[in-house]
C-alpha cells in the first residue's frame, strides 16, 4: 500500500484529489496547512506528498524545506502560481514536480504514478545489457525494439523509433531538424519541411504525460530538439 499526503488549505480540492487517488488504489492522508503536513509525515509512513504553495501559516516552500531536512520522498507542488519563476523556485528547493492549478486530474494521477514508480524502482535496474538505453523513466531496448516509459510499453512507428533512438543515444545534445533528417533519412535535407518536427510531436504525445510540458523530449525553440539527460 502506497501512502500519499495531500496538503491544501482548500478542503474541496483535497477531497477531490483523494477521490482520484483512492480510485487508483492509493492510501490518502490529508492535511490543511504546513504544520499539519510535517506532523503527519512524522507519524505516518508517507511515500509521496502533494502540496499547495500558498497556504496560511507555514507556506508550501518552507514546509517542503522542512520535509527535505529529514526525508527524500517525492514532493509534487500543486499551485496557482503559474509563472516560470515560481516553478523554478519550487523545483530548486527540492520538489520533484510542479503542477499548476487548475490542473487536469488525470495528469495529476499520471505524474503521481510516475514519481512513485521512479521512487520505488530506484536502484532496481541491474544487469542491463549494452543495447538498453535509459533516460530517467524512459527505456529503449534496441535488441527487442521495445520502448517503455516507467514500465508502460509505448508503440512507436519505425521513424519515430529511429528518431528517439538517435536522441537517447546522444542525451543532452541538441539536434536541429536538418541534422535529424539527414541522420534518419540518410539524404540531404533539401526541401525538408516540418516532417521531422511533426514526427517529434507525435513521439512526445506518446511518451510524455503532458506533451506541452515534456519531461523527456524537449523542444529547444529556434535550435532543435534534445532528450534531457536525467
Amino acid at each position, binding site marked *: 500500500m502506497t501512502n500519499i499526503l495531500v496538503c491544501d488549505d482548500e478542503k474541496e480540492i483535497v477531497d477531490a484529489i483523494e477521490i482520484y487517488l483512492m480510485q487508483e488504489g492509493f492510501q490518502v492522508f490529508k492535511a490543511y496547512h504546513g504544520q499539519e503536513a510535517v506532523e503527519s509525515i512524522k507519524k505516518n509512513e508517507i511515500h509521496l506528498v502533494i502540496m499547495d504553495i500558498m497556504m496560511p501559516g507555514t507556506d508550501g516552500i518552507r514546509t517542503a524545506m522542512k520535509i527535505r531536512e529529514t526525508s527524500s520522498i517525492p514532493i509534487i507542488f500543486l499551485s*496557482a502560481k503559474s509563472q516560470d519563476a515560481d516553478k523554478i523556485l519550487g523545483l530548486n528547493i527540492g520538489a520533484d514536480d510542479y503542477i499548476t492549478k487548475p490542473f487536469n486530474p488525470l495528469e495529476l494521477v499520471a505524474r503521481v504514478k510516475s514519481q512513485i514508480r521512479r521512487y520505488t524502482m530506484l536502484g532496481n535496474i541491474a544487469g542491463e545489457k549494452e543495447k538498453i538505453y535509459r533516460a530517467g523513466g524512459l527505456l529503449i531496448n534496441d535488441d527487442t525494439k521495445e520502448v517503455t516509459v516507467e514500465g508502460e510499453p509505448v508503440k512507436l512507428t519505425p521513424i519515430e523509433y529511429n528518431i528517439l533512438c538517435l536522441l537517447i543515444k546522444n542525451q543532452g545534445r541538441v539536434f536541429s531538424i536538418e541534422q535529424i533528417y539527414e541522420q534518419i533519412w540518410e539524404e540531404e535535407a533539401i526541401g525538408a519541411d516540418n516532417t521531422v*518536427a511533426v514526427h517529434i510531436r507525435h513521439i512526445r504525445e506518446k511518451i510524455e504525460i503532458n506533451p506541452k510540458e515534456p519531461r523527456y523530449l524537449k523542444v529547444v525553440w529556434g535550435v*532543435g530538439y534534445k532528450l534531457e539527460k536525467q
Partner: protein
Amino acid sequence: MKKAEGKRPLKSGVRELLIFIERLFLVILSVTLALIFTNSFFQVSTPYGTTYHYGISPLEREKEFEEKEIFKSLLLGNMEQLVHYAAISHRLETAGEYDGKKEIDITQYAAVTQEGKEKLPAVTYYLDDLIAWGNYGFEHHTYKTGENKELMDYASSIEEYEVLKECLMLAAENLFENYSKYISFKEYCEGEKTNVKYYFKIPTETGELCYTNSKLEAGEKKTDDITALIGKESQRFIFFDPDKVQINTNTHISAKQLKGLFKGQEEVFAQGSKIWFWVEKDYPIADSFQTVKKQLEELQPYLQALEIVVFISALGGILSLFIVTKKEGRAFNEEGNIIYITKKSDSFPIEIWTLLVALAEGILLYLIFILLLQFKKGNLEPAIIPVFIGILAFTGNELGIRWYFSLIRRKKAGSFWSTTLLYLGGKRGREFITEAYENGSLLFRTWIPYLIFLMGNLILVLLGLGGVLGALLLDILIGVFLYQRKHQLEEIVEGIERITEGDSGYRIDTAHLKGDNLRLAIAVNSIGKGIRQAVETSMKDEKLKTDLITNVSHDIKTPLTSIITYVDLLKRENITNEKALGYLEILDNKSQRLKQLIDDLVEASKISSGNITLKREKINFAELVKQALAEFDEKLSQKQLQLICKIPQYAMMIEADSSQLWRVMENLISNACKYSLSGTRIYVEMETREETGNQKYQFLMKNISESFLEPESEELTERFMRGDLSRQTEGSGLGLSIAKNLVEAMEGSFKIEVDGDLFKAVVVFNAYEKISR
C-alpha cells in the same frame, strides 16, 4: 579679551567727544598757522618813500639777520638810493657843493637821456635858470643862454629849433626833478640817517673825486687799504670795481646785481671808478635795519612756541580722527558679535555729496585765499586773520567730517559701490533695457539691435581708417557673440533631441546660458522633468496593476480548480441523462476557457507593463517557425486547413528570447487555426530583406478569415478590444496583443494587415549576422 576690547565700537558720547577734540585741534592748528603767517609779514617804510613788505620764510628762521633775504633787500634798496643820489649830485655839484652857475649843455644833457641828438649844436644854460624854469615854467624866447643868446640864434632851421626847444624843456624838467630829489635825499644820504655807508672814488680830468657819507677821509689811499679798513670797521661790506665787474663782499649780493645797479650811470662813474658800500657795525643809527632786526628778535621765541602748538594740535587731531575712523560703523548685533552698520544718510548718492562737499570746501579755500591776499596787500588788520581762519576751519571740518565718516562706514559695510549714483543709474538702466528687451515685441528685440549695429558700423566707417578698423573689430565681436548664441541653441536642440529619444532624465546645463536661450533651456528642462515624472508614475501604476491582476488571478484559480475537478468527477459518475451530459460538457469547456483567460490576462498585463525579463540568445528564426508549425500539425488538419510553407533552407539567425518567440508563434498560428475559414489555405512565407543597409528576416502568414473582419488591423492587437468577437469564440482576444508586445520588447516589428477577408501577420527581426550558409 584684550583683543576684543580693541574691536569694540565707540560709545556715542565718546565718539562725539573725539570728533569735538579733532575739530578743536584743527581750529587751533589753523589759527596758529594763521598767526605764524601773519607774523611772518611786516612792513618797513623807508624815508625815501618806498614801503617794503617782507615775509620771513620758515627756512630762513635760524639764519642770522645779515644772512636773511630781508637784509639783502634792504641793503640793495639803500644802495640804489645812494647810487641815484650820487649820480644826481654829480650833475648838480661842483667840488662837493651845489653850484647854481654851473653851465649845462642842454643838447648834451638830453643826449644822455635821449639818443640821436649828437648833431645838434651845443647850447649852454645856467643850472639855476634851468631849475627855475623847470619849476615855474618858461618861455624860451625870452630867456637867454649863458652866452646871452636867444635859442633861435643856435638853430640853423625851423626843424632844428623845434628839436632844441624840446631838448631845453626836457633838460629843465629833468633837472628840476633831480634837484627836488637832491634836496630831499641830501640829508638822508649825507647825514646820520642810514646805517648804509658808501665811498665812491671817481677819477676826473683834474685828478680824483671822492663821494662819501662816512667819516672816511678822501685821500691818496690805495684801493686795497680802503677795502681792508672798511672790512674791519663794518658789519657787512661790498667792494665793486665796475671796469672788471669784480666784487669783494661778505654779503649775498652778486656782481651781476651791482652791475645792474650802475647801469646807465657810466657818465657819472667814469672809467677807473672804485665803489665801496658797507653797513655800520651794530646798527647805531635808527633806520629800517635797526627796526627789522629788533622785530625779528622779538618774534623769534614767539614763533617757536607757535610751532610747537602746531605740532601738538596736528598730532592730536590726527590721533583722534584715526581712533574714530577705526571704530566707525562698528556695532554689536543681537548675539554680541561685531557687525558693520551704516546710517540712513549713507544711502545718499556719494557722488552728489562729494560734489557738494568739494564745492563748499572750494569756496572756503577761496575765501582763505582772498583773506590772505587782502592781508598781504595790507588792507586787513593782522589780528582779524586768525579769527576768520578759525571760523572757516571749523565750518570746513563740519562739512567734511560727515562726508568722510559716511565714506568710511560705506566702505566698511561694503555698500560703497552699491550706493553710488553710477551703480544705481547703471542698475536702473540695465533693468530698463532688460525689461524692454524681454517684454518688448519681437520687432523691438530683433530690429532695434540690428539697426543699432548698422548705424554703429556706418558711423564708424565714416570716421575714417581708425573707424573702419573699429567697425571690423565690432563686427568680429558681434560675430563671436552670434556664434556663441547659436552654439548655446545647438546644445538646447541636442537636449530636446535626447529627451525626445526617451532620455527623459537628461538636463541641459543652464549655467552659461543667457537671455532667450536660458528661458528656452529652463522650459525644456521642466518639460523633460514633467515627462520623466509622468513616465515614472505610469510605470509605477502599471506595476501595481500587474501585481493586482496577478494576485487576483491566483485567488480566482483556487475556486476554479475545484470547479474543474468536480466537473471531471461528475463526468465519471455514470450519468445516463443525455441533457445532463451535455450541460456537463459545457461546464467543462467554459471552465477550461476561464482558465485560459486568466493565464492570458496575467501574461498580457505583465508584458504590457514591461514586467518580463527576456533571455536574449542567438536562435534560428526559420527553425523555430518550423517547430511551431509542427506543433499545430494536427489542429490544422482537423480544420482541413492546408499549410503552404515557403521557408528558406539557410539559417535565419536572430537575437531573441526563444520561449517568448515561441509564444508569439503559438499565438499567431493558433489564431490562424481558430479563425480561418475551414478548407482554405494558410500561407507561411519567410524571406530575407535588405532595409536601409540592415539585413532583416521577415515572417509572413496569410489566411482567410472565417468571419467578417470589421475593425482596423491595428485595433486587432489592442487588448480587450475584441469585445463581441471574443465572446463567441474560444480565444481570449489577448493573443495578438501579447504577440505584438513581445515582438516589440525583443526589438522586432509586428504588423497586422486586413485586406477584405485576407488576414496578414508580419513579424520582422534584425539579422544577428550575415547569412551563415
